[in-house]
């Protein structure tokens, strides 16, 4: 018997709409309204400024460890292509997506300053809390997708993760389930080139991460992940497919983590300044700004109020954060939500902590928490 080729109809596309100078490929223009374009830009800038502000707060010891977003703001394009009834299942570097969806910034600050209350999302946001163990959360999008399909809703679930996550078995299992059950899911891989100190090239020998979709007979494409319009277009197409019942899609966003993995990390130990500088030239915000200025949607006169509004918005979020912190957050709330109803053992343990704390207060040995 001769050796035969199995003909598999697979190709991986790479999509880029804006070039580094902000010039658009007209044939790929997603034709967004001026209002949406400005909102995208504004949210990207807000996310950048908020991220910078959090870094300052972290260095001042006012908040704890967090994973900076800087450089990955084009992720907001994916969130913008979704409808409010679509679910978002994030990892831990999706601050931009979260802000777009409506997670209040004071809640983000609350979480990173060590209060469990930061995990509370506003009602009906369809946004899950941050998930830290890399790659472990994609299943949940697949399950939610199944629920949406089962209940006949024309909505989908989008899940975000990084390049490192594609090495976890859970990633492959989630992709396989999504494909087998044809669930309305978008897998959005933010390939930011570095999983802490391990570069993408050492993470996997596959040429692209997008091609990993092909093993599950699912479309996979790569997009310029610093091009918000490309990200938007790819997510919109994937969302359309999902809503039509055509199943899941994997989108690999080629982007770059311009800052550290988390504030506890020092990238100088493992990567060159030149590489960072090279990627700074591809900054997603600068590029989009050039495009909007070229299109005369933005100019200095219109920029000024945006910048001021952003500053005020961050300032008032900080104000609300401090208000919550300075108001009474009861330490006993650590027992809240352990279960729907506290067990007898937990009630006894909570009572024990209450006595300890009131004893300390009486003895004057308890510090007031910041």
């Amino acid at each position, binding site marked *: 018997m001769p050796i035969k080729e199995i003909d598999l109809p697979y190709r991986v596309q790479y999509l880029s709409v804006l070039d580094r100078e902000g010039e658009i490929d007209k044939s790929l223009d997603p034709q967004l309204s001026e209002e949406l374009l400005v909102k995208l830009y504004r949210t990207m800038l807000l996310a950048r400024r908020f991220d910078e502000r959090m870094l300052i707060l972290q260095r001042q010891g006012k908040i*704890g*460890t*967090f994973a900076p977003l800087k450089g990955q703001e084009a992720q907001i394009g994916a969130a913008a292509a979704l409808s409010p009834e679509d679910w978002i299942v994030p990892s*831990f570097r999706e601050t931009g997506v979260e802000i777009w969806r409506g997670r209040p910034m004071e809640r983000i600050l609350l*979480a990173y*300053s*060590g*209060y*469990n209350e*930061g995990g509370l999302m506003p009602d009906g946001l369809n946004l899950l809390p*941050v998930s*830290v*163990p*890399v*790659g*472990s959360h994609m299943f949940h999008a697949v399950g939610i997708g199944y629920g949406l399909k089962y209940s006949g809703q024309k909505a989908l679930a989008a899940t975000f993760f990084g390049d*490192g*996550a594609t*090495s*976890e*078995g*859970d990633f492959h299992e989630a992709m396989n389930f999504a494909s087998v059950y044809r669930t309305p899911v978008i897998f959005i891989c933010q390939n930011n080139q570095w*999983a*802490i*100190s*391990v570069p993408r090239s*050492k*993470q*996997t020998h596959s040429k692209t991460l997008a091609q990993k979709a092909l093993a599950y007979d699912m479309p996979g494409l790569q997009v310029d992940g610093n091009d918000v319009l490309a990200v938007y277009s790819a997510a919109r197409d994937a969302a359309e497919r999902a809503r039509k019942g055509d199943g899941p899609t994997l989108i690999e966003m080629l982007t770059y983590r311009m800052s550290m993995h*988390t504030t*506890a*990390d020092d990238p100088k*130990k*493992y990567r060159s300044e030149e590489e960072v500088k090279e990627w700074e030239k591809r900054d997603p915000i600068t590029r989009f700004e050039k495009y909007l200025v070229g299109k005369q949607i933005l100019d200095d006169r219109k920029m000024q109020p945006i910048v001021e509004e952003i500053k005020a918005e961050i300032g008032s979020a900080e104000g609300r954060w401090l208000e919550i912190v300075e108001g009474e*957050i009861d*330490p006993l709330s*650590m*027992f809240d939500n*352990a279960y729907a109803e506290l*067990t007898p*053992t*937990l009630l006894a*343990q*909570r009572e024990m*902590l209450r006595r*300890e*704390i009131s004893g*300390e207060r009486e003895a004057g040995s308890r510090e007031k*928490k910041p």
Partner: protein
Amino acid sequence: MPKINMVQAINMALLQEMEKDDRVILLGEDIGVNGGVFRVTDGLYDKFGPQRVLDTPLAESAIAGFSIGMAIFGLRPVCEMQFSGFSYFAFHQMEAHASRMRGRSQGRYSVPMVLRAPYGGGVRALEHHSESREIYWAHTPGLKMVIPSSPRTARALMISAIRDPDPVIFYEPKALYRAFREEVPEEEETFPIGSSRIALEGDDITLISYGASLRWTLEAASELQAEDGIKCEVIDLLSLSPLDDELFIESVKKTGRAVVVHEAGCSYGAGAEVVARIVQGAFLYLEAPVRRATGFDIVIPLYQREQDYLPGVRRIKGAVRETLAF
């Protein structure tokens, strides 16, 4: 003797064993070029190269399973879980295979590997970076489970763990990584797995602990001595599995009273086993119920409240005083 911290002490043990035995291989996420997120493997990649210090792809189950294969083959892998909170991806490999291979193959194959993981609270970290779930491993037959409490015990236990013929889970109390320095002899020193030690001698009450909470226990003992003249005997378990019950049972026979301290949640924690052994081994010597000063049966809260969760000096002293007042 140089005074070094626990990070340096574990690094020293790894370095010494790697120099001595070329079967010893290190692997894990960010342990090579970056030297580990806590710098425990700092400098070892430069010294031994990428064949012996592997920066793996991000996959904890693979790291454990791959190590099992290496160990079966005859290598001596020491793998790192970046945080114990991410080790549950690897739990299946350790439970289903590492712990069972000797029995399954009727002694033909064994898994002499070490799985290292920083654990525990008190360092103001994110979710999944502060738990103390050592009992999952200690409860698994076929695995050994050790937790050092100081630089010197860490160095000695690590050498013993690497040389042990069976899989050893080595939990590193990250609250103690850089908390204090101690003299650690250059020359080789081991500590038998399955043995405990007396960290402080006393006659009034026996306090039993391990890991970071041993430190808090010693602080509490020192305050109790200063404030009320209470002389605590403090036992450092070091191994949760196998558990050395002789030393603490003997101690309780002397003192008649005991408190077990750990940061893990109370129910089904190591304290439960220790109390059961005390009841079995020293029942007629007991003058008061044995108490536990522990964390609560909830997920450790984010850092603003972790000190209220952890069994600090306050909770330990309270338990001691109640036990003495019985």
